[in-house]
């Protein structure tokens, strides 16, 4: 019991230390109050103390108040994949009586502690219950009871809970698959599909669960708990900044400069345009990037006398890959970053080189694929058309552009430097958006409308739907299955995540796919030796983004690009996209996989 003893005592001493510190804060507050005598300061200090005390009350988890009790039992709950089980009810029972001696709930790390004033002489039963798990119990025999009586503390070895497959498991799984299908086949808008999913799950839980406990999936509070608010606020901040930046016309201007610089050499032009798209998509979302790049690229392509698709398809492929190197480059990276605690600098350090190599390989492939286009030469365009093109690519408001660039720079400094002071990216983004709103003073209603509430609602509903399959254990089953395949082989794990997610992402929308894969990757990261470097999260990031290049339906950016080009004589057909996209997908996935093996 040596290690167990130590662990338990360590926990308890921490609790006492915290309580001591709490007292010191209050006493020093009162001293300030006497010394200053200023009413305003007294009021402020008093208010602050009240807030601190209230916060302390709110954030103390159940089962912490152990100082007044004579006997303390502690332990840990784990599932079959050695993951902590939170929210389980643990009760100590006198084996002779029908009443619980004490009850508590397991914390987020699976630990729990029971405090009692009195204990039975002979034996005691510890019962553990949690929805979606089989109930478990363990008995403290006479010897263990003697230990507890002597030292006042006993650490019970880890209790393993087994998952239970009941009706709620199948309902949550069916609803989750239905949401994916509704989104995939565009029967419903993604946000509507996710909302329909969470509504169904909650209605089944509350209405059905009242009649049959096996139908209870989770409570509303538990569902809300699955929403990642850091992701939501980061998206809101970035959406406001993007709305201001895109209105300046900077990316169209850059595309026109590329046309000028290339002097009719279309192979050089496509490389520069791909580079601009990479930069744009690392800062903006891919959808907005393509809305900005496609119209001007159409005009440039026609001005050069080549098929504009030879410029536009490489651009859309670049936009899907370019965003991988930054935290804010793709919504999937935002999800991964918030979930795994991977910061802006981590993405830059661990992904950028791999992404650049993948882009070089992609560039080489598209140059080869469209080789006939680069040979085409025309006499150029008339001065009138050139002037029109230049006019269409003008920067619209230089003053706003500079201000937006300065704030954008500050936000990025916040992303880079903020990690050292625990400043989460969401705070930098929201602060940047607020500074821009104050500085530029745009119509606030217009700016709030620029925030994509549909996507935010989609994210929130999706988090809850994925939370439901976590709750009922589907994620554990998939992760367990993957663990058995992978075993201790990290290389195989990386391969499976990169190529498995990459292949799925060619047809499944990458946001729900990533949200569903995150809990699986979290479990695999803990179970596969060496995966603690978070390499599987980077594998997920690469797979989800690069896979979007496989088919025309693989990403929103692909579809919006096709939508715009369909307005001209250069529509992108499924086949046309596939011929370039699919080889590029597997080439870049291979580069990404090799890079991760080298890097980690």
């Amino acid at each position, binding site marked *: 019991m040596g290690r167990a003893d130590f662990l338990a005592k360590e926990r308890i001493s921490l609790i006492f230390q915290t309580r001591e510190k709490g007292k010191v804060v209050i006493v020093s507050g009162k001293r300030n109050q006497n010394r200053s005598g200023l009413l305003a300061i007294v009021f402020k200090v008093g208010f602050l103390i009240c807030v601190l005390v209230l916060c302390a009350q709110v954030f103390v988890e159940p089962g912490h108040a152990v100082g007044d009790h004579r006997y303390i039992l502690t332990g840990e709950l784990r599932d079959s994949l050695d993951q902590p089980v939170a929210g389980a009810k643990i009760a100590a029972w006198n084996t002779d009586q029908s009443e619980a001696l004490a009850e508590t709930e397991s914390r987020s790390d699976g630990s729990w502690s029971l405090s009692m004033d009195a204990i039975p002489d002979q034996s005691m039963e510890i019962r553990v219950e949690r929805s979606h798990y089989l109930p478990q119990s363990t008995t403290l025999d006479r010897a263990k009871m003697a230990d507890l009586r002597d030292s006042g503390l006993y650490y019970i070895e880890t209790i393993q809970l087994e998952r239970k497959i009941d009706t709620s498991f199948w309902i949550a799984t069916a609803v989750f698959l239905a949401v994916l299908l509704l989104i995939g086949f*565009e029967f419903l*808008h*993604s*946000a509507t599909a996710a909302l329909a999913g969470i509504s169904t799950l909650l209605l089944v839980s509350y209405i059905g669960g009242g009649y049959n406990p096996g139908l209870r999936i989770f409570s509303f509070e538990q569902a809300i708990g699955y929403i990642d608010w850091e992701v939501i606020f980061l998206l809101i901040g970035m*959406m406001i900044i*993007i*709305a201001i930046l*895109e*209105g300046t016309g900077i990316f169209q201007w850059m595309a026109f400069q590329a046309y000028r610089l290339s002097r009719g050499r279309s192979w050089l032009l496509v490389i520069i345009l791909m580079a601009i798209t990479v930069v744009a998509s690392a800062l903006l*979302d891919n*959808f*907005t990037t393509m*809305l*900005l790049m496609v*119209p*001007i690229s*159409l*005009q440039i392509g*026609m001005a050069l006398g080549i098929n504009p698709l030879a410029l536009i398809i490489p651009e859309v492929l670049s936009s899907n890959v370019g965003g991988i190197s930054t935290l804010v480059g793709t919504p999937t990276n935002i999800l991964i970053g918030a979930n795994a605690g991977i910061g802006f600098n981590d993405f830059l350090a661990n992904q950028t080189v791999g992404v650049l190599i993948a882009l070089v390989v992609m560039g080489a492939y598209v140059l080869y694929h469209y080789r006939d286009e680069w040979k085409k030469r025309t006499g150029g*365009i*008339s001065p*009138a*058309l050139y002037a*029109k*093109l230049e006019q*269409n690519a003008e920067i619209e408001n230089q003053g706003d552009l500079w201000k937006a660039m300065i704030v954008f720079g500050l936000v990025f400094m916040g992303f880079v430097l903020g990690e050292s002071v625990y400043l989460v990216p969401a705070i930098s983004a929201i602060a940047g958006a607020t500074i821009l709103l104050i500085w530029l003073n745009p119509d606030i209603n217009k700016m709030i*409308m*620029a*925030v*994509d*509430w*549909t*996507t935010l609602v*989609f994210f929130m509903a999706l988090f809850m739907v994925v939370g439901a399959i976590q709750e009922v254990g589907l994620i554990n089953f998939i992760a367990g299955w993957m663990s058995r395949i992978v075993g201790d082989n990290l290389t195989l794990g990386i391969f499976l995540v990169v190529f498995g997610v990459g292949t799925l992402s060619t047809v499944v929308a990458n946001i729900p796919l990533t949200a569903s894969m995150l809990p699986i990757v979290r479990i695999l990261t803990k179970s596969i030796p060496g995966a603690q470097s978070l390499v599987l999260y980077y594998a997920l990031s690469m797979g989800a983004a690069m896979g979007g290049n496989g088919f025309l339906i693989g990403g*929103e950016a692909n*579809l*919006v690009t096709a*939508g*715009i080009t*369909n*307005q*001209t*004589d*250069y*529509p992108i*057909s499924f086949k046309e996209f596939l011929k370039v996209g699919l080889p590029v997908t597997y080439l870049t996935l291979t580069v990404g996989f090799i890079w991760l093996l080298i890097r980690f």
Partner: protein
Amino acid sequence: MVTILCPTRGGKESHPNQDFAVQLAKERSAALLFLYVSDIQFLKRAGPAIVVDIQEEMAEVGDFLLSMAQERAEKAGVSASTVVRSGLFRDVLCEVIAENEIDTVVLGSASQESGLVSLEHLQQLSEELSQELDVKFILLQDGIQVFSVGT
């Protein structure tokens, strides 16, 4: 003076149809009007919010495409004017025909590979509108007349 309307999407596939309209205008000493219609309905199904003024961007694309067509007509000795509109093609076509007292509409169907609108669909549209608006419709495929309807 009679006016010929040539709706076009502006790329290389449209050149034979544009040339036909230019030649027709030259033969009849008619005015030539090129029309570009963008329809951004597809964005309604898009997930993300549209922060870009895509309607303006598409108007710029249309303006550029029609300027190219205009230069092409000028080279053939025909002065042409241009109209860029946004909306459903059928509705916009009716509006422009009424506004400009159009005599003949030259509609081109794109080749099979890249065509978004079938020849049959355009034929049906021509028959309906020629009756409704009393306008002649000439239907082409790759610059060759395949159908005509109206006075």
